[in-house]
């Protein structure tokens, strides 16, 4: 007879564990990570350049990691701000994972770094699924991209703690429908704060930095509706145990769900409820 093994474990449990460890690593150093998600060409790098320069000028130790499939162009641009910057080349991979980020930070992240900006691969689909141990996740969209971006990419915008509109200096020229955009944001992520910025004019850059600093100081970030179910996955795999994986002691045989008193299995099943 065929044997069935009940697993009930999150597919991304490994990444979630790595993210949890990374969150601890950053926390011990007093560093707060900010994960920036957007499509290619939305102006992430230009805005981050301004943001870093402003942070450095204001005396906040900030650093950045930028991920791309190829070239170190973004790291070169960001380094002009005077902040320490590192490039991650994903070699074709469409997103960053917590383990990749951790490896890049070890041995490099300067002592005393307060803010660590992580510019994810330009992509609104895949990066949304991976927790990078960040305290703040920001989804960006430029005014040139179309107002329906949030509803077209509900996971990316739905899991964001903050939504940032970029390139607002040309909003009128391109006929940006602000109300439609905000309606879409509200649909997939009710209550999320939205900030409008322009890297060219500097509009909103100070407000954005202030928002990030408030979160770094412990002010509670917005909790998206989508993240509430997602959080349970994180918690069911991160109860502070050294290796909280359900697969350590699989129970072979036709075991019914709920029959096993084992803590590992019980904990893993918790995510279903």
């Amino acid at each position, binding site marked *: 007879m065929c044997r069935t093994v009940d*697993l009930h474990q999150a*597919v991304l449990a490994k990444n979630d564990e790595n993210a949890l460890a990374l969150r601890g690593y950053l926390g011990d150093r007093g560093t707060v990570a900010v994960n920036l998600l957007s499509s290619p060409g939305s102006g992430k790098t230009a805005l981050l350049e301004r943001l870093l320069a402003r942070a450095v000028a204001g005396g906040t130790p900030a650093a950045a990691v930028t991920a791309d499939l190829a070239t170190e162009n973004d790291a070169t641009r960001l380094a002009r701000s005077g902040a320490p910057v590192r490039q991650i080349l994903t070699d074709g991979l469409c997103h960053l994972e917590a383990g990749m980020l951790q490896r890049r930070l070890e041995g490099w992240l300067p002592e005393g770094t307060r803010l660590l900006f992580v510019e994810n691969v330009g992509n609104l689909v895949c990066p949304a699924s991976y927790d990078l141990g960040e305290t703040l996740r920001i989804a960006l969209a430029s005014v040139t991209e179309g107002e329906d971006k949030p509803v077209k990419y509900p996971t990316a915008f739905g899991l964001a703690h903050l939504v940032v509109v970029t390139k607002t200096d040309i909003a009128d020229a391109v006929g940006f429908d602000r109300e439609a955009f905000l309606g879409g944001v509200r649909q997939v992520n009710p209550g999320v704060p939205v900030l409008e910025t322009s890297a060219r004019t500097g509009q909103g850059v100070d407000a954005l930095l202030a928002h990030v600093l408030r979160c770094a100081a412990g002010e509670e970030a917005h909790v998206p509706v989508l993240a509430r179910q997602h959080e349970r996955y994180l918690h069911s795999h991160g109860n502070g145990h050294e290796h909280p994986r359900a697969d350590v002691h699989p129970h072979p045989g036709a075991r019914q769900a709920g029959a096993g008193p084992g803590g590992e299995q019980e904990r893993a099943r918790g995510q279903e409820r």
Partner: protein
Amino acid sequence: MHELSIAVAVVEQVEEAVREQDRAVASLTLRIGELAGVVPEALDFSFGLATEGTALAGARLLIETVGARGRCEGCGRETPTGMPPVLWCAGCGTPLTLLSGRELEIVRVTLADEPLDARKTVDGKGVGPPGGKGADDGPRPAPSGLPVRDEEASHVPHR
């Protein structure tokens, strides 16, 4: 197309879970929520690639999809969120509580009857792998040869 990375994560976890069983995997059941950000068809395609040369090679992938539902804590209404999701209550404007839709879970695996090695040496009579001198030492806890291929396969999408 992160479905390939997802498929590799599935393969790694399942291999780890069934390693001691020394059995091939006959089928695997995943539960995927409507709002998990994973396309079942793309995952199915990636699964074939990710399982090559592993204990899951040839395994049947069964996907249970879970519809996204939310409940309004204000007026108690419970509704499907739709796609793209509407995550606030049309009745009273309160943000919903998400009840389901974000699942991305390995539910269970079914193991084949025959040992992993017997399946590899199809028409032989289960003779050990090349260089099987250690075969006299009795059953080995770690399947010979397999882990190497497993490692290689798992790294393909990261390149």
